[in-house]
């Protein structure tokens, strides 16, 4: 039991820990190099200003954005959830269709059909045209 569980999830934890070491180690080496003056570290206010075509930046970037990002986010949530609901159906489809026949398919046709109506509505409303 321990063996099985370890090989499924414990391994991923260990791998994630080691994967964390890689970028942290790279940053650490770079930091050490700056301490022994191999890597320069001479910040000044011009160097630390943000890049904007060589001009001084006018107003911050955290301001209003195009509205079209919002419908994309909404549609993403709807259809991504649809895909997630399809996963268990797809995994058990072979076994279920032997037992219940075509009914399993019709069920999902109805489920996707409702969402596909929404997709066609969005298509007609020009939401999907960026």
């Amino acid at each position, binding site marked *: 039991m321990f063996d099985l569980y*370890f*090989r*499924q*999830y*414990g*391994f*991923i934890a*260990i*791998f*994630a820990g*080691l*994967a*964390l070491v*890689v*970028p*942290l180690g*790279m*940053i650490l*080496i*770079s930091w050490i*190099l*700056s301490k022994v003056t*191999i*890597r*320069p570290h*001479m910040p000044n206010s011009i160097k*630390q*200003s*943000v*890049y*904007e075509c060589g001009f001084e*930046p006018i107003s911050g*970037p*955290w301001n209003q*954005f195009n509205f079209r*990002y919002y419908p*994309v*986010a909404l549609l*993403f949530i709807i*259809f*991504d959830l649809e*895909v*997630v609901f*399809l*996963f268990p159906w*797809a*995994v058990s*489809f*072979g076994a279920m*269709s032997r037992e219940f*026949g*075509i009914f399993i*398919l019709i069920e999902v*046709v109805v489920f*996707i059909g409702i969402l596909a109506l929404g*997709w066609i509505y969005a*298509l007609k409303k020009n939401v*999907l*045209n*960026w």
Partner: protein
Amino acid sequence: MCEQPEGLLNFCRIYNLYEIILPSWLSSLTYLMSAITLAFAVINMLIISTALYTWFERRTLARFQSRIGPNRWGPFGLLQPIADVVKAITKEDTVPESADKIVFNLAPILLLITTLLVIVVIPLGPDSFMGSLNIGVIFIIGVTSINTIAIFMGGWASRNKYAMFGAMRSVAMLITYEIPMGIAIVGILLLSNSLALSDIVMSQTIPFFIVQPIGFFVFFAASIAEISRTPFDQIEAESELGSGFHTEYSGIKFAIITLAEFMAPIISAIIITTLYLGGFKGPNILPAEFWFAIKVFILIFFMLWIRATWPRLRIDQIMNFAWKPLFGLGLFNLFATAIEIIVFQDNATGFISTSDYWIISGINWMFAIVLFFAITQIMGSKNKEKIKHSYEANIVR
């Protein structure tokens, strides 16, 4: 004692080696040590292959454009990646004064970890994989989605307009392409009846890209978009946005981001190999891991070919391509596969024989050719008017 000594990168093989050194009452330490050894080996393998891949990409792209490419350091310029690392690590690391420092520093770390973490569930050989998760597909989808957050963190924390534009575009693009990707994967799950990647590989009596050409096309296009390679690289459109979300990064943090960016094609090719090309399966001449590597290499070269050949698409073309043709094709593939399973499967065991798989592939290829032809006709002829229309609408708004 641990059984199943198959495969080169086998957990049991390393476990048995450690068991010789360590006493038996320290079995949990043995587990830990062998796991760390294996994880260390795989991470290093991935990083070294990424370094070689940067050389390979620059060299091949140069040949595509009748240049020579890097050829100074080492034979054929093979030591170029090391020179790049030395350069990046000795450059000054500037952080903008107005940036959100914590998020700014966290973004490259998160980006690299999520890129590395995908390989943990991939079966690299018959028994040489690390986390043999029974929900491997869901793990892959979940972990690759975190990339989006990391990219947005980097762009948002930079307080740079170009970085912010790049980040917003990337979020819109990456989340959009996750939908066709997911639908294409559902087509595979219908055939494999399992979420574990090793089961998916074992169920491929003939590779799934022959059985489901439409699904393969959808998944391939979506995964190129997910790693934001050239036909879809609006994230770092150099001519418009500086270099997108990592405009403000320099020095070692830039190197980390570049490492993750160049590792992404390898990871993506590994996922496609596992799902569609039959993973480690192949004739018995070579070990299974070599077949896996060969297939990954062919896919990487194919991606490079696409990058060298095609121009960058506009953001509106990218979004239209995801929502209209790819989404529709994915749904079509799903239903076609489901109907074919009902027709062809054995009613007692649910088994589909190899000859039936060939018949299914023939039907699917016919559909694929007709649909691709129709889509190129529709997208090609009507595109101009629609784009003109949407531009005018923008000006009025």
